[in-house]
């Protein structure tokens, strides 16, 4: 194996203090990275440093601390702009995460530009957070939700998608990467086709940003949303990219401080982008640390991380396939390092409990994608998702752990 040449995994692991612990007497194997990744010491340090030295409310303070906090906050916006390849910082809105980003677009773009009889297209691979906001909008406005079907490999059926497209479609909202199966969707093609009928496109990038390079201008995507916590950053913070013209045409999301220009009881005028969408004191410390997380992956090299994770995926796929009765759910040609599986005759909850007793953390259940599970005739799966700090030896532990689970339950 050439893996050790690609990345210095032990050096990376040393940056993640949480990994160095025992669970139930065994060294922790953390394979729940699609739910949330762990945080490097550098990210933890920045949060601590912010509260120890720089904390102040941003933008309107005249004192030194306010200036420092504002500078770091806005530096993070610039870092995210560069990370996404956006043309301007006005297009970067801080949110609490992917879910809020989607809800923001549903509540503002949706309310203003989607009317009764219009159609919204999502896909059968979506997380509940990219289903329910559109259902709520459709209930309110009388618009219609259409779903791109999923084939047996866990890929979107693009022919069926083209059949769904018409002038009635105002928005297409799909994930870049499936959280349950790891499928990488052909979003460039999806966006191009949608634009062909005049529909706008939102891409849920929650599962993509830790594995793939994103270029919103090359994609020509209208909205792109993601969370920091799946990208080695803090929880409770994320970003929404939106094309400037669209964001300008959209009404504000929440009312409050920061998002206003002038307030009187007769009339309030709204602030310019991006502040129009950022009412209230934001999550400043975590915004600042989000930049550190991005830089952490960039310093290691995002292509190198992706190459290493792909090797983990290939190895895990091959090794898990040796377990009798185990079936991998989701065998798309293009995948990130996520393996969802079922073992014949064994409930996923039993797998989860018995792996945890061996110090191995996986996710079991429907992964907030109940319609997708139904598509495959399943109530849930077990999912192992790998990050740059995982190793081949840990995958061996998983395989041995599953063999033991099978033996215990036989």
């Amino acid at each position, binding site marked *: 194996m050439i893996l050790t040449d690609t990345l210095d995994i032990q050096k990376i692991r040393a940056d993640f203090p949480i990994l160095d612990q025992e669970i*139930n*007497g065994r060294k922790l194997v953390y394979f729940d990275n699609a739910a949330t990744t762990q945080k490097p010491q550098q990210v933890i340090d920045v949060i601590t440093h912010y509260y120890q030295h720089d904390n102040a409310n941003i933008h309107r303070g005249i004192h030194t601390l306010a200036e420092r906090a504002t500078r770091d906050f806005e530096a993070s916006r610039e870092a995210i702009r560069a990370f996404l390849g956006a043309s301007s910082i006005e297009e970067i809105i801080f949110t609490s995460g992917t879910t809020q980003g989607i809800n923001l677009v549903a509540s503002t773009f949706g309310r203003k530009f989607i009317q009764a009889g219009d159609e919204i297209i999502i896909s059968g691979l979506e997380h509940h957070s990219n289903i329910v906001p559109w259902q709520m909008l459709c209930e309110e406005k009388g618009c219609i939700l259409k779903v791109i079907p999923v084939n047996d490999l866990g890929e979107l059926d693009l022919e069926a998608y083209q059949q769904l497209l018409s002038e009635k479609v105002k928005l297409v909202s799909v994930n870049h990467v499936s959280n349950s199966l790891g499928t990488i969707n052909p979003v460039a093609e999806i966006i191009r086709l949608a634009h062909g009928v005049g529909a706008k496109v939102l891409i849920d990038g929650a599962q993509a940003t830790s594995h793939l390079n994103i270029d919103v201008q090359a994609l020509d995507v209208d909205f792109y949303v993601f969370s920091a916590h799946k990208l080695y950053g803090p929880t409770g913070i994320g970003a929404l990219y939106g094309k400037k013209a669209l964001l300008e045409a959209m009404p504000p999301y929440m009312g409050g401080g920061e998002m206003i220009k002038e307030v009187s009881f007769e009339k309030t005028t709204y602030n310019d982008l991006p502040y129009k969408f950022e009412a209230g004191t934001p999550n400043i410390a975590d915004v600042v640390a989000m930049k550190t997380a991005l830089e952490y992956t960039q310093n290691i090299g995002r292509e190198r991380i992706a190459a290493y994770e792909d090797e983990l995926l290939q190895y895990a796929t091959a090794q898990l396939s040796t377990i009798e009765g185990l079936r991998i759910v989701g065998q798309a040609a293009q995948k990130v390092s996520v393996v969802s599986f079922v073992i014949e005759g064994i*409930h*996923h*909850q*039993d797998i*989860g*409990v*018995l792996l945890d*007793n061996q110090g191995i953390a996986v996710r*079991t*259940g429907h992964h907030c994608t109940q319609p997708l599970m139904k598509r495959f005739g399943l*109530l*849930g799966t077990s999912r192992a998702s790998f990050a740059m700090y995982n190793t081949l030896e840990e995958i061996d532990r998983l395989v041995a752990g599953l063999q*033991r689970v099978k033996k*215990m*339950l036989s």
Partner: protein
Amino acid sequence: MTINETQDEIIEEFALFDDWADKYEYIIDLGKKLKGLPEEQKTEDNIIKGCQSRVWLNAKLENGKLIFEADSEAVIVKGLVNMLIRVLSAHTPQEIAQADLYFIDRIGMSQHLAQTRSNGLASMVKQMKNYAIAYQLKA
């Protein structure tokens, strides 16, 4: 046997196990031995909410004693519910409503009571107690 006598008996049984695997093999065995419920009783009404696997619980009053029957898709959950039935079933609604289930902690299964585990042991206990309270009020 009283509820507490059964609890003490289970605690003694678990004292024999050296490691987690022995303990879980025993629970798995209990799960396999649980009689379960006929399909027609696995109804939406009998489902216990808050479990990652589906758990069905049925209760009936016979000669003043509450009889529980349960089933689940997951074997470990079945094993846990088997123990709860062994402790609580065939006692009066009043005894069940007032029972202090200390055995769960003593056999090292209290982590299954935590909400995050969502395997529903806490929900099962609550549902059994709810049945007991309901039958107490009926009586």
